[in-house]
């Protein structure tokens, strides 16, 4: 029973990190209707900046620079690429983000090479023991940080004028523009926020028990895609629930791996995708996604 609780708590913590990534993804989708396939490379960029700077600056400043760096990369992608597209077809823009992803990922993986970079976090491999349950400090920090950020984001989304203009743009871009919402700024802001959230997630995807930032980190970041889509691409609640679901499933599949050997090794990495397929079979629009209304 205590192992189960441990696995579950670890899963929730991991899930909250996925939720952070998925949230950024959903924010971009809501503000601009673009499915951003370059999201994993934004995450890698944030992690890489933090990893290279923490020796010189210390951890916290390096993390801040990393967040700012990823936000800047996101904003630059929006400003230099997305904004240049004059057509109206958003699935073509999704393909552009694939091109951006190829560029960014190639550059970052070339820089990282075969190294495993530490991010210099202060938690190390310390473990907190609560009776029979032991939890790594990093996992607790991940959950707390994700919960704080998500709450702050949702409050901002609801109450600040930035949030209102973003929701207005998501509702109807044309009307919002006529009401004086500057769509360019909204989408620039969305990309920057998504980049920043991804950089925080990069930190928690690479701390203990994972070895550190490496090429394969972008594959871990990809798991936020199923999280976003099984929750419903246009729903922030969906991103949170999807993230948690994916995290817990992955954690359970990894934790009970020894009982599931007939399914092969490495099942944990596969579990998020299996959950996604199962949910899409029943609800094609995701758990919380709005079913596209058909207007003619």
């Amino acid at each position, binding site marked *: 029973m205590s192992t189960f609780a441990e696995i579950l708590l670890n899963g929730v913590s991991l899930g909250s990190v996925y939720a952070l990534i998925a949230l950024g993804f959903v924010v971009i989708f809501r503000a601009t209707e673009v499915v951003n396939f370059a999201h994993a490379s934004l995450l890698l960029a944030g992690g890489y900046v933090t990893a290279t700077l923490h020796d010189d600056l210390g951890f916290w400043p390096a993390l801040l620079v990393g967040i700012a760096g990823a936000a800047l990369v996101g904003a630059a992608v929006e400003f230099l*690429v997305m904004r240049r597209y004059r057509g109206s077809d958003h699935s073509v823009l999704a393909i552009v983000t*694939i091109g951006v992803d*190829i560029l960014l990922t190639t550059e970052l993986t070339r820089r990282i090479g075969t190294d495993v970079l530490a991010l210099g976090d202060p938690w190390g491999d310390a473990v907190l023991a609560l009776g029979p349950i032991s939890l790594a400090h990093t996992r607790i920090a991940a959950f707390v940080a994700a919960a704080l950020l998500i709450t702050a984001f949702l409050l901002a989304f609801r109450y600040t004028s930035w949030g209102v203009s973003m929701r207005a743009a998501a509702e109807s871009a044309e009307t919002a523009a006529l009401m004086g919402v500057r769509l360019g700024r909204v989408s620039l802001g969305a990309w920057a926020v998504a980049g920043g959230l991804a950089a925080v997630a990069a930190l928690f995807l690479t701390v203990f028990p994972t070895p550190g930032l490496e090429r394969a980190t972008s594959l871990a970041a990809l798991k936020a895609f199923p999280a976003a889509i099984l929750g419903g691409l246009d729903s922030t609640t969906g991103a949170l629930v999807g993230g948690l679901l994916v995290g817990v499933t992955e954690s359970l599949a990894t934790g009970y791996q020894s009982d599931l050997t007939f399914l092969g090794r490495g099942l944990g990495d596969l579990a998020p995708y*299996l959950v996604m397929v199962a949910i*899409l079979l029943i609800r094609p629009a995701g758990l919380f996604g709005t079913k596209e209304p058909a207007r003619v």
Partner: protein
Amino acid sequence: MSEALLRPLRAVPARLYVWAAGTVLLLALPFYLDRFWLQAGLFAMAAAIGAIGINLLTGATGQLSMGHAFFLAVGAYGYCVFAADGGDGGGGGDGLTGLGLPTWLAAVLAVLVAGVAGGLFSPISGRLSGAYLGIATLALVFIGQHVMFNAHDLTGGANGRDVPPLSLFGLTFDDRELLVAAVPFGSAEKLWYAGLVLLLAGALFARGVLRGRPGRAMNAIRDHRIAAGVLGVPVARHRAAVFVLSSMYAGLAGVLLALVFQRTVPDYFGIVLSLEYLAMIVIGGLGSVAGAVAGAVFVSLLPQLLTRYSDALPLVSAPGTGGIAPGEASRYLYGAAVVLVVLFLPGGLVRVAAGRRVTTHPGEER
């Protein structure tokens, strides 16, 4: 268009000459090129077949797929499993499952199995649209990787398995040399012709699909799903059917790739491969057969060219020497090409080659 109608007597023969010259050139190449270039050409042909398939899906129907690496793998491994001798027969040395069927039958069955795999995904491929489907199909790549690494009896695990050479009408496409007009023909030379035939057949079939009723229906679904439905196009069925057809093309490409490589390894069929195929069709031109072929040639020959001439090129150096390796350099180039083509050349390379001016709204160009 109207110009072409006004001078049909001059325009048509010119086209014919180009086609004839191209055919003669392609048929003659194995007599002159060395093995390296023939293999590069074969990769391009296999990629072209796969790209035609994914262009039917993504370009013509507007359904994104990031899972095509999976169907390529199904084709490649399917061929191995059907064609290899069983381990218990004593002949097959690697002890992996093999049905020992005639190799041509194995190739056909492998393509069919890829189609069935695509059909099994139809509850999702029929209902999801565009980029949603793109994310959903990511699952296929990871499921495929998992199976390839774990189903050891079928796939040989991480080490992969050997590909039995194809034999057709008593001719075996292996390295036993055959002298044709004083030129020794190895596997690459023989496969070259098989690849040409398959590519031509695939291209003609896809062109037929695109020009006929199904093609109209597919474009209608891409441009306006609801209007297509109102006009009586069964949207879900068409989406699922195109997905199946597209996976069969990928399966065929997988079979050809396996025959060229002579060994299949799971690492090759990863997410990068799927992205490469998407890059091909975007660069070449979405929605057309010629675009798929042009893009496939560009994307698959680029790394080969850079590898061959890495000494002569600035910035590019051999892998492991600290500079930009040829593989990375080519990824930079086609990544940038994807972005630039979508932004500045809607319609891709074929549109430029055709010299047509873009007059419609870029959003409708696809």
